[in-house]
C-alpha cells in the first residue's frame, strides 16, 4: 500500500474540527475588543449631495495616480497583478479561486469591471519561481459593467512549459453582484514537487512531477467583495494526470515514489462555501475579522473508485495597534481530505499541502503534504507608504510585515501533533492597489532554508 492509501478514514475528527472552526467564527468578533469597524473621521469639507454647487462628476474622476499609471499601461480594470507564478498563481487563479473548493476562494478579490468593453492585457512573467523565469500571456474579456453577461479567455505559458488556458462565460461581476460562471480550463505544471507524506518527509527526497488537468467548472455565489455574508456553490468535472517532472536537477517523483504515478483519472466534484467578512478592507485589512468554511465532495467519474470529502476552514483577526499604520494580524486555518467511500485512497496531488508563499513561508512550496493540515500565522504589519489620494480608502499601500508561521500536516485533523509543528519567520513587503493585493516579496527563514518569497496571492 502506498503513501496515498495508508491512512484510515476519520469522520469524527473531520466533524469535530468543523464544529470548532464554526464556533471560532461565531465567537471571534465578540471576543476581541475594538474589532468592530470604525468609520474614519470625515474631515474633508464635502458638500452634501443636493448642494447646488455639487456638479455631476465626469466619469472616472476618482482615479488615483496609480490607477492612471496602470490605465496608461493598459492594465486598469483587468488585474494588473496577474503575473504568472507558482502553482495556482497564474492566469486562472481568478477562476480557480472560485471553483477550487478551498476556503481561500471566498476571499478572492478582483479590481472590478473594466471601464470599456473588450479588454486585452499582457501579463508579465514572474522571476525566479519554479514555474518559469520568463513568460507571458493574454487575458481578453468582454465585461459589461456590474451586471449582465460576460465572457473571456486567458492564456499563459513560461519557458518551463508551465501553461494555463481558460475560457469562461458568466453572469454579473462576482465582486459586486450575485454571479454565475462556467469555466473551461487546461493547466499543466511541469515543476510541481513532492517529498513524501507527513511532517517528517525527508528533505533529501525532493523530487518533481508534472500535473496536467483539464475540465470544466460551474459556480454561483453571492458578491465576494461585500462585507458580510459570502456564499457559493460549485460543481465540476476534470481529467487529471501525474507524470514525470521537468526539473533537470532533481529526480522524478514517480521514480522516487513509484506508487504516486497516476494514469488519466476523471473526477467530479460539488461543494459549497460560506464566509463572513467583517474586515474593513478585504485586501489590506486594518481591523475586523473574517472566517470561512468550505466543503467539496469529490468522486471518480470513471472506473476508479476514488471518493472523498475535502473541507477547509479559516479564521483571521486584525487588530489596530493605536492606528491603521500598525496592525497585529492572526490567522488560523485547517483543512482535510477524508475518504468517504470503500477505497481508502486519495490521489496524492489533491491532498492538502503546506509551504511556499502562503503558508510556512520559510519552506519550499508544497513541502509538506498529507491528508490534513493545520496552520497559523501571526504578523506585525506596518505601513511604509500610503498613496496620497483625497480618499485614503482608495489609495494604494506598501506594507511591511514581520511574520511567524507555524503548522504541520498529519494523517487526520485530530492526529495533528503539536510536537511536530514546523516554524518559519520572515519579513515581507506587500503592495496593494485599491482593495486588492498586487504582490508580496520578502524572505522567510526555517530550519531547512532561507527562502525568497514572491507571491501574487496575499496571505490574508
Amino acid at each position, binding site marked *: 500500500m502506498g503513501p496515498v492509501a495508508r491512512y484510515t478514514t476519520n469522520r469524527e475528527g473531520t466533524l469535530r474540527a468543523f464544529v470548532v472552526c464554526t464556533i471560532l467564527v461565531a465567537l471571534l468578533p465578540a471576543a476581541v475588543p475594538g474589532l468592530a469597524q470604525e468609520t474614519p473621521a470625515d474631515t474633508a*469639507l464635502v*458638500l452634501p449631495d443636493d448642494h447646488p454647487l455639487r456638479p455631476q462628476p*465626469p466619469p472616472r474622476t476618482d482615479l488615483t495616480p496609480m490607477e492612471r*499609471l496602470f490605465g*496608461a499601461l493598459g492594465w486598469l480594470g483587468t488585474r494588473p497583478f496577474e503575473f504568472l507564478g507558482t502553482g495556482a498563481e497564474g492566469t486562472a487563479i481568478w477562476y480557480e479561486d472560485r471553483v477550487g473548493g478551498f476556503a481561500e476562494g471566498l476571499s478572492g478579490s478582483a479590481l472590478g469591471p473594466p471601464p470599456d468593453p473588450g479588454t486585452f492585457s499582457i501579463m508579465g512573467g514572474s522571476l525566479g519561481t519554479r514555474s518559469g523565469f520568463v513568460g507571458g500571456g493574454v487575458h481578453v474579456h468582454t465585461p459589461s459593467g456590474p451586471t449582465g453577461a460576460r465572457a473571456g479567455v486567458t492564456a499563459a505559458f513560461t519557458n518551463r512549459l508551465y501553461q494555463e488556458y481558460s475560457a469562461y462565460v458568466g453572469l454579473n461581476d462576482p465582486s459586486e453582484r450575485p454571479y454565475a460562471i462556467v469555466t473551461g480550463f487546461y493547466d499543466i505544471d511541469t515543476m510541481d514537487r513532492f517529498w513524501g507524506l507527513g511532517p517528517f518527509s525527508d528533505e533529501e527526497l525532493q523530487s518533481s512531477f508534472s500535473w496536467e488537468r483539464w475540465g470544466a467548472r460551474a459556480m454561483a455565489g453571492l458578491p465576494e467583495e461585500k462585507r458580510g455574508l459570502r456564499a457559493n456553490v460549485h460543481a465540476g468535472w476534470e481529467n487529471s494526470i501525474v507524470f514525470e517532472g521537468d526539473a533537470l536537477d532533481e529526480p522524478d517523483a514517480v521514480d522516487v515514489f513509484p506508487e504516486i504515478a497516476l494514469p488519466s483519472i476523471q473526477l467530479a466534484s460539488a461543494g459549497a462555501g460560506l464566509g463572513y467578512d467583517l474586515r474593513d478592507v478585504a485586501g489590506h485589512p486594518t481591523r475586523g475579522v473574517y472566517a470561512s468554511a468550505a466543503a467539496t465532495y469529490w468522486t471518480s467519474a470513471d472506473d476508479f473508485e476514488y471518493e472523498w470529502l475535502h473541507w477547509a476552514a479559516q479564521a483571521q483577526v486584525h487588530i489596530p495597534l493605536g492606528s491603521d*499604520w*500598525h496592525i497585529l494580524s492572526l490567522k488560523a486555518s485547517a483543512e482535510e481530505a477524508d475518504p468517504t467511500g470503500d477505497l481508502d485512497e486519495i490521489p496524492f496531488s489533491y491532498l492538502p499541502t503546506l509551504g511556499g508563499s502562503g503558508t510556512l513561508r520559510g519552506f519550499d512550496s508544497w513541502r509538506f503534504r498529507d491528508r490534513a493540515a493545520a496552520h497559523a500565522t501571526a504578523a506585525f504589519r506596518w*505601513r511604509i*507608504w500610503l498613496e496620497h489620494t*483625497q480618499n485614503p480608502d482608495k489609495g494604494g499601500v506598501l506594507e511591511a510585515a514581520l511574520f511567524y508561521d507555524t503548522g504541520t500536516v498529519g494523517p487526520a485533523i485530530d492526529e495533528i501533533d503539536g510536537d511536530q509543528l514546523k516554524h518559519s519567520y520572515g519579513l515581507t513587503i506587500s503592495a496593494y492597489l485599491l482593495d486588492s493585493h498586487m504582490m508580496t516579496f520578502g524572505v522567510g527563514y526555517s530550519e531547512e532554508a532561507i527562502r525568497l518569497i514572491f507571491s501574487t496571492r496575499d496571505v490574508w
Partner: protein
Amino acid sequence: MTTRSALAALAITAAAISTACGGRPIQPWEYQPRPMADTLAIFEPDETQPSLVYEQVYGVFSGLGRVASVNRKTGLPPALNADPFDEVVNSAWFTNRNARDPLSPDGILRGPQASEGPDQSGEVTIWSIKAEGVTPGFWIEDAAGVRWILKFDPPENWEMGSGAEVVATNLFWAAGYHTPENHVYYLDPSRLVLDDELDAEFPEAEGMVEYRVGADDPARELTMDVFRRHILDRYPTSSDGMIRAMASRFLPGAPKGPFDYAGLREDDPNDVIPHEHRRELRGLYVMAAWLNHVDAKKGNTQDMFIVDPRSPEGDDAPAIGYLRHHLLDFGSALGSGSVHPHNPRHGSEHDFDASAILLRLVTFGAYKRPWQKMLPYPEWPPSIGFYSIDGFNPADWRSNIVNPAFINRTARDGYWGAKLVMSFTDAQLDAAARAGRYSEPDAAAYLLEGLKERRDATGRYWFRQVSSLDRPRVEGGAVVFDDLWARHFGGSARYEYALDWDDGGIDDEGEVTSARIPLPAPAAGVPTGGDSADDHLRLEVRKVFDDGGRADRPATIWLAWDGSAYRVVGVRY
C-alpha cells in the same frame, strides 16, 4: 596583489578622487559674466514633449539616489551661476525684481498682468475645448484677438484654484521668475461663440461622444446649448450671470516644450549651466516651500522661443532668437490642489517618498512625517484649502515628485531663496492675497496669515544657515553690511570676524557689536590687482545670535586693494 590589480585599484582611486574634486568653484574674481546672460541669438529649436511617466520614475530614483548620495554627505557642489556677490544676474531664467528693487503693493497686486484680462467687449470665440478629466477648460480668442486659456474652480472649492493660481503667479513673478499673465476673470457667457471648425468630446453615459460645429448629424452638432450643458452648467454663476474663471494669456513667442530641472537642453547653445546647478532653480525650492507649490515639476514649465527682430524674413529662413524659461500652472500652490484642496500631506512627503519609506521600514513605522502627526486633519476654508504654518518645515518641505534641482540645494542657495521670500512685506502680501479676489474675508485672512507665518519661518531657518550679512561694501575704511536677521527679527548686532592677507601682512580677528568692521591698510608695497587668493584680503564674518548660537557658516568677503582704498570684489555665504 598583482601589479595589474594594483594598477587597476590605483586607476579607480584616481578616477574617484578626480570625480570628487572636479568642478572647482569659481572664485569671485574669476567671474565671467558672458555665459550667464543667455539671450544670445540661436536658431529656432524644435518643440519637445514632456514625458510625465519618465519624470515620475526619474523622481523615484532621484529620491533613492538622494538616500544613497555620497555628495549629500560630503557636501554638494555649489551653484555654478552665482555672480561675485552670490546673486544671479538677469537672464532668460530670472529677472531680479522685488528683492533688488521693491515693488509697490499695487505692483504686487497686478503682478505680470499687462492687461485687464480677456476683452469681452465683443464676441469671445471658443476655439478649443478640453472636456475630459477633472479640470475642464477651454481656449478663447477675446474681442481684441488675444488668446487665453480659461480654467475653472472645482465647484466644491469655488475660488480655490483660480485664487491660488493668481496669488502664486504674482508672487513668483515678483520674486523674479518668468510666468504667464494670469487673471481672476469673470466670464460673460452671453459673449461666447463657437469657432466654425470647433469639435469636442464630452463624457456621456455611453462614453465619450464627439460633437462638431456644423455636423451632418443634428444629434452630434456642437451648439452653445451642448457646450453649456457639458461645461458651463457645472459652475455657479454670480447674480449678474458671470462665471468665475482663471484666465491665462498665451505666452509670447513659440512654445518649445518644458525645461528639465536637470541637465542641459542640447539644442540651446545658450544653455551652458546644468539646470540642477542653477541658483534660480535650486533657490526656487525656498519659494516653492513657502508657497507650497508642490507641483514644481518639468511638466509645469515652458520654454518659449522669443524671435529676434533681426530674424531673417521668409518662411524658409531659419528664425533666430532665444529661449525664455517659464514656470507655469500654480493651481496646485498654496492650499489648492487644483481639483481638491491641499491637506497637510501636501508638501510633507513626496508622492512616492523613498527615504520616508525606508525610514518607516527600518523603524517599524515609528518614523513619521509631519502630516502623520496632524491626523485627524484640522479644518480649512474651502476656498483656500490647507495652507498653514502647522507642520511646515522650511528645510524639509517636499514637492510631489522629487525635483533634481531642489535636492541639490545648498545653504547658499537656500539663503538666496530666503532673501526672495523675506523681501515681501506684510503690505505686499496683503496685496498679493487681494489678487485672489476671494469673496470670503475670513478665507483671505487665513491665506494671508499662512503667507506671513511661513515667510517668517523660512527666514528664521535659512538666515541661520549662513551669516545673513547682505550687501557688504566699503565705507569710511570699514566693511559695512546689512544684517538681514536683525532687520527682520531684531536682536543685537554681534559678529565675530577674521581678517587674513598674508601678502598684505594682515592677520587679525575679533568681535564687533555693530555692522561695521574696520579694515587695516596693508603693508607698504603690496601690489595691486592680481587674480589669485594671495592678492586679496579675506574677511570672514560670522553672525552671533542673542541666544549665543552662531550662524552655521560665515560670510566670506573678498576685498581688493587699489593702492589707496579697498573695494569689495566678492562674497560667498
